[in-house]
């Protein structure tokens, strides 16, 4: 079973060249990303992991760190709606 965390780390590694992003680091707070990137991130999550990001999931808190994104994917795949 693929660990989503690894794929997410790769996604960021490809975009944040030369910066070691920690799993719990807030990507918006460190100032690297803008709103366009946020949208690319949502689309990546949907396409790569086959989850549907609903309106209520569309909060910065669900996408602002590797941990947050991994937790969202776990909830969508494992949890009941």
């Amino acid at each position, binding site marked *: 079973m693929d660990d989503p965390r690894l794929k997410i780390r790769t996604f960021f590694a490809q975009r944040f060249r030369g910066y070691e992003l920690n799993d719990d680091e807030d990507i918006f707070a460190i100032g690297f990303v803008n709103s366009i990137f*946020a949208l690319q991130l949502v689309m990546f999550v949907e396409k790569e992991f086959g989850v549907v990001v609903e*309106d209520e999931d*569309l909060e910065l808190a669900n996408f602002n760190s590797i941990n947050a994104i991994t937790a969202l994917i776990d909830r969508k795949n494992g949890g009941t709606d």
Partner: protein
Amino acid sequence: MSIQTVGVVGAGVMGRGVSQVLSQAGLNAILVDVSDEILDQARLEIKQNIRLQRMMNKTAPGETTDAVLQRIEFSNEYQKLERVDFLIENVTENFEIKREVYRQLDVICPDHCVFAANTSAIPITRLAALTKRPAKVIGMHFMNPVPMKPTVEVIKGFNTSAETISTAQELLERIGKEGIVVNDSPGFVTNRVLMLTINEAIFVLQEQVADAETIDRLFKTCFGHKMGPLETADLIGLDTILNSIEVLYESFNDSKYRPCPLLKKLVDAGFHGRKSGRGFYFY
């Protein structure tokens, strides 16, 4: 006049943004374009932008993304505009194309419908003359990206009535924007001065006075501009810039508006800026 439904003609960058803000303000919009492919892309992009705004805004929105999107009707039929109260035209920045569009709209749209031309440089008076309702034709120059920019340059054509200006201002207020009224003149205020600045910056680059990054950096750090002229050109689209400066050149017959050869070359080469992946910078 109570505006219920707004027609948006042209589903390019501006048409998409205008449709989005209309629908987010609770109005119904009919987005018309000749190309089904462009309409499909528009639907997708508008949906993503609504979702993006939802994510970036901290306030809880009252409606679902789908509810907002449902207020926009996507169509390739001009005939659908027969029931609109107000119309915003954003087709290609080209007079001949607009001529044909206004001819059709004048026949299809109801008599009370205001035509707002979202043009960046074509004189409103000239567009109004294409119709039988010049008093109801006004310019509404939205800025890009439409959802983020709070101000719209509103242009009073020679024959535009006070009532039309008032209707336009009310609509803008409803969608959370402020209209600033200017008189009709090629390029109005914003584009005339901006195109000249951008064109001159391209001359500076062509003459190798400085490279692109340096030119932009000087504007940002010396003047506090958010973006330098060449970055701005890439955002607007070099083909649009060239179109606009050519319109200014023809309108004023003043050589100060002659397009920089480097700009023409880049446009010929297909480097149209952000939308084509390359302009003065790579994307």
